């Protein structure tokens, strides 16, 4: 099964404003200095999948709507 992330970042939408990074209560987002998107920006990146509390703030503050946030529950087969 593919790894499912709590956060989907459309990297090509990102303009590096850093709002998501700034407001993430858990400080689990960062600029991805290893990448430049087609517009020349370093996109945001989730650096700590575990640390993310799926609060949704990064999605709300992103002016580009670059981030979707999902609640992921492992369903344990009972």
């Amino acid at each position: 099964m593919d790894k499912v992330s709590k956060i989907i970042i459309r990297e090509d939408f990102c303009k590096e404003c850093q709002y998501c990074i700034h407001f993430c209560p858990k400080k689990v987002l960062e600029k991805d200095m290893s990448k430049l998107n087609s517009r020349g920006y370093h996109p945001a990146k989730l650096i700590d999948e575990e640390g993310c509390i799926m609060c949704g703030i990064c999605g709300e503050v992103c002016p580009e709507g670059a981030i979707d946030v999902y609640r992921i529950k492992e369903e344990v087969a009972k």
Partner: protein
Amino acid sequence: MSVTPIYTFPKSMENRVTNYCPGCHHGIVHKLVAELIDEMNLFEKTIIVWPIGCSVLGYEYFKTDGCVAAHGRAPAMATGIKRSNPNNFVLSYQGDGDLASIGMAEIVHAAARGEKITVVFINNTNYGMTGGQMAPTTLPGQKTTTSPYGRDPNLCGWPIRVSELLSTLDGAAYIARIAVNKPARITQAKKYLKKAFNAQLKGIGFSLVEFISACPVQWHMTPLKALERIENELIPYYPLGEFKVKEGVE
């Protein structure tokens, strides 16, 4: 494994990158508008009148019907639309140059008439699109390309507080001012906007929400600095809150 969306891109919006500068608050407000259109099930009846300003291409970002008004005349155009299609939900999206400068007569009269339209008013204290000129909302001392030495009130007057001004009008049903420079404010903004939408939907009258917004590029600041400027300089001059709430608006 279950996947529940906590925050996802609004359905009423087109899935594409905007032309806005990094950190521009137009984008945040667009999403709020779209989220409410989705949540309140307004998509099929919404018509948005876009202004001349950075958001002139707003119609490319929304899936709703739309048109672009002449500079400042969005309230008049929205009036024409609403009067002939009273069952549509009509938004007028405007910047501060558009609304508070060239369009002052049109916004005052739309409010006075109690025109059943909702205005989304982006006050970023300058003319973004044309390169950062002074607007009627530019703060004293603020440097812009046409107030290069800082706005001098003795020379060119004092900033206009649009929400306060419009609240003097009997036709205004709902007038509020908010910023989107913090997550909590974004939540609040959505509540205000919802009331504004309802003022129209219930036929109570004219509604407007003023957004104190960042224009990092023309302010010559990083987006994060721009958020601070809103907090420290703008909100003290432009107090947030509801200025007019006619009975029945909720």
